[in-house]
């Protein structure tokens, strides 16, 4: 069964793009590696291994592009569309918001807000149940980790 309004992308193009991104990335990485000290054979420096790793990535990227070249043009990768895409983007934005709020507001409040909004996005429940569930869940997590196990999570301005 196909999801509603599914989008797709040519697999061939995806591999070519991924490989090209890898080539670009490894080129930048190699450039930076070459600035690190290499030392001498009896005192090998910090630059040697990154150069090796960078070359391996470069080769792997080229292989990715070559494999992409050989794919059937008909092979496609399914991407989310419509409502599915909206949900996925919402999740990412919520997570981003959560992580920005975390040091400012502390774990309890930011996780509560995150949890309430995420539940709203992924379920058809009413606000009342969502808030109730969220308070219980976030309260339990906070109690277990911060209160009981004393994990020093960010406390934020309200000291929670």
């Amino acid at each position: 069964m196909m999801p509603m309004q599914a989008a797709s992308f040519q697999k061939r193009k995806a591999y070519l793009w991924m490989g090209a991104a890898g080539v670009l990335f490894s080129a930048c990485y190699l450039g930076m590696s070459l600035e690190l000290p290499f030392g001498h054979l009896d005192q090998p420096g910090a630059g040697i291994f990154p150069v090796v790793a960078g070359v391996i990535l470069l080769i792997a990227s080229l292989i990715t592009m070559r494999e992409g070249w050989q794919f059937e043009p008909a092979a496609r990768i399914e991407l989310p569309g419509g409502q599915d895409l909206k949900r996925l983007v919402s999740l990412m934005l919520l997570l981003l918001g959560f992580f920005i709020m975390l040091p400012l507001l502390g774990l309890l409040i930011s996780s509560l807000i995150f949890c309430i909004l995420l539940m709203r996005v992924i379920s058809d429940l009413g606000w009342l149940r969502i808030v109730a569930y969220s308070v219980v869940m976030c309260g339990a997590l906070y109690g277990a980790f911060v209160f009981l196990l004393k994990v020093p999570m960010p406390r934020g301005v309200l000291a929670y």
Partner: protein
Amino acid sequence: MNFLVKSAVTLLTAGAVLNGAPALAQDYPTRDITFVVPYNPGGATDPISRQFSSQLEKVLHVGVNVENKPGGSGTIGAGQIMRSKPDGYTIGLSDIGALAYQPLINKGLVYKNSDDYQPIVKLSEQPVVLVVRADARWKNFDEFVAEVKSSPGKIRVGVNGLRTAPDLVIQQFNKVAGTRIVTVPFSGGGGEATIAVLGGRIEAMANSGAGNIGHVKAGTLRALAVFTKGKYEPFPDASPVGDAGYNATMGSAFYVIGPKGMPPAVLTKLSNAALQVAQSEEFRAFAKANVYVAEPKGPSEMKADIDQFSQIYTELLKFIDQR
């Protein structure tokens, strides 16, 4: 379900008010203190931190929670302590390497010297011990030095990373004795240098005593020398390098620091409590069991101590760079 929300809100606001109330410095401490440890749990800094914080709890009658903040040879945790609010509720452990050596080679740190943070107490010193395999051909330190001099650049001493306290004291020895001992870094803190010595891959290793005392007592390793002036009690057979005429006696040392700008009343109470802990019989017994040398010193003495180390390191770096 409404009451759940309500009670949560009430709880939150109540907490906010409680914490927001301006606590008077005289009342310090009114809540738990965070004790930052700039290394991984399980590192050499862990036992001493736990010991100190649990004793400080008893003196100050509040909780002292250890928070590990590893990375950057101890500079990340140190930076976190120094950037925290100077209210006496965030202090932490640091060591001579992070405080005196790292600022010399790492320009990106938030601190440059002992003026940038508040010294609170010096806890202990850990002399560096030179050990060899039990069946090694050198009977004593003199024979070892003789061979070092006759074959420069051939004798390898394992250390737990380049420019750590053991490496630096070996370099200091190279400087004053005109020798060329090669140091081999074994990182990872997993005693890999010990294995390399036991396996005969390198000639010797230099480390703080705690890591090796078990092997020395068991007779699998032998302590040739200790980089101190005067005997080091746990290793009675090791000859003190300082007494043999070489001025190479730097060990590593543990300190407690806080951010700059604490209210004087808070600082006095905190540093007195910390000094009381460091001077206590219980802490001395702990230090002895872990082969540390207890060295309780108050803020001003501690500052002088660190400044002196900075001086030595600066000169040593010039020497290393010339080579």
